[in-house]
């Protein structure tokens, strides 16, 4: 089945207030800047965002937080080279934080995509992040129960898409995108280029098209890290 190719503003148009949104990327690698800016322009509020971090500088996710559009963030590392926007919002009680170990975060996302409602992990046992969680010893390992994480939408940056939504990623920009594509009810992907059917070797596909709902072709995408270093403020 071919997937619709549309503009970023069109792709995010139906995201409602209160939506949960997974946003791909680790640092600037894989951050879907154009999609997040389209969401910023679109106006949805009271969002729950799942990302490894909590925004840097004044662009992308940081701009979304700055403009009080995010009620809650689920992430592992909300401190970056310039995470003042999140820090201010958090310290003033404007945004809720659910802190999750990075491996548990991605395993929960993977579980959401793979239909695993819960899993036991030794990660965080005996730490404050295990507080209140069910524990069990399995095969001699003390574990905590973690549950799956799903979202209404995923915003993901890939490199190439074919008309069926099959994706490849560039270098370490692969990171969270492929797992997030599987865990969201509606996955919106920005790609550098939409290639012809057959142009992606079936053995090289990283995200099969079944996980992709909407494609935005953005031929010269911004690299978030470069925007941050240039101190760009959006909008």
């Amino acid at each position, binding site marked *: 089945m071919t997937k619709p190719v549309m503009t970023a503003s069109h792709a995010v148009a139906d995201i409602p207030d209160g939506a949960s949104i997974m946003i791909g990327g680790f640092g600037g690698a894989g951050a879907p800047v154009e999609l997040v800016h389209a969401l910023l322009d679109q106006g949805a509020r009271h969002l729950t965002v799942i990302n490894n971090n909590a925004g840097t500088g004044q662009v992308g996710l940081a701009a979304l937080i700055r403009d009080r559009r995010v009620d809650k963030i689920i992430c592992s590392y909300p401190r970056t080279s310039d995470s003042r926007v999140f820090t201010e919002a958090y310290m003033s009680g404007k945004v809720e934080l659910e802190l999750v170990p990075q491996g548990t975060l991605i395993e929960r996302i993977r579980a959401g995509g793979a239909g695993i409602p819960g899993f036991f992990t030794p990660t965080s046992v005996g730490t404050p992040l295990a507080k209140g969680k069910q524990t069990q010893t399995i095969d001699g390992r003390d574990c905590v129960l973690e549950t799956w994480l799903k979202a209404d939408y995923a915003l993901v940056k890939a490199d190439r898409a074919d008309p069926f939504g099959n994706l490849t990623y560039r270098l370490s920009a692969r990171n969270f995108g492929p797992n997030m594509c599987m865990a969201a009810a509606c996955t919106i992907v920005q790609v550098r280029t939409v290639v012809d059917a057959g142009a992606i070797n079936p053995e090289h596909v990283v995200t*099969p098209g079944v996980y992709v709902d909407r494609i935005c072709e953005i031929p010269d995408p911004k690299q978030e890290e470069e925007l941050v270093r240039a101190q760009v403020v959006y909008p």
Partner: protein
Amino acid sequence: MNELSSVALSRKQMAWRAAQDIEDGFYVNLGIGMPTLCSGYVPDGRHVTYQSENGILGVGPSPAVDQEDFDLINASKAPVTLLPGASFVVQADSFAMIRGGHIDLAILGAFQIAPNGDLANWSTGDDGVPAVGGAMDLVAGAKAVRCLTTHVTKSGAPKLVASCAYPLTGLGVVSRIYTDLAVVDVSDGKFILRELVEGLSTDEISAMTDAPLLIAPDLKPLIAPAL
């Protein structure tokens, strides 16, 4: 049962009927055996993507015999081809696709189906070698499960039963049944007769069904082309 043979659908016709309900854009897993025939009868213009649980998305038709490659097989271990847009995934990712609710429809065979949607299709409980494969994963994970089966066994025993006597594959999973005689919906704990082959009365089909069979107000004839 001889008098019924003239009206019963053939295997190909049964597959044809099930295929008419496969929607455009669906991702579909076809069970081993008769369900695999469905892919040949999807109406023109509908784009359907077939998944094979051994790790292929985008399965195409069988190859010519001299083109067979046993590294490219489906879940029935038969050689297949790839359609444009196909991809391979590792086994855990293939079942993530199934168990994660990404497959719109699974069409499976059945030994017994109950009005509550319970399905038994992996074991007749005998003393032979049990084998389950991906059946329990498919019924737990696919968005919809429909069954394709003869209405009764070779010996005439109903397959639509009040309660499955055979070991279950899944609980409350089946939503529609295509048999050689009828199309039956499974909804709210009831069997509802939607379509019936011509020449067979509702009393006759009820007699071959070992559970109450509600008759849909708009009961339609079950008609398939000669195949």
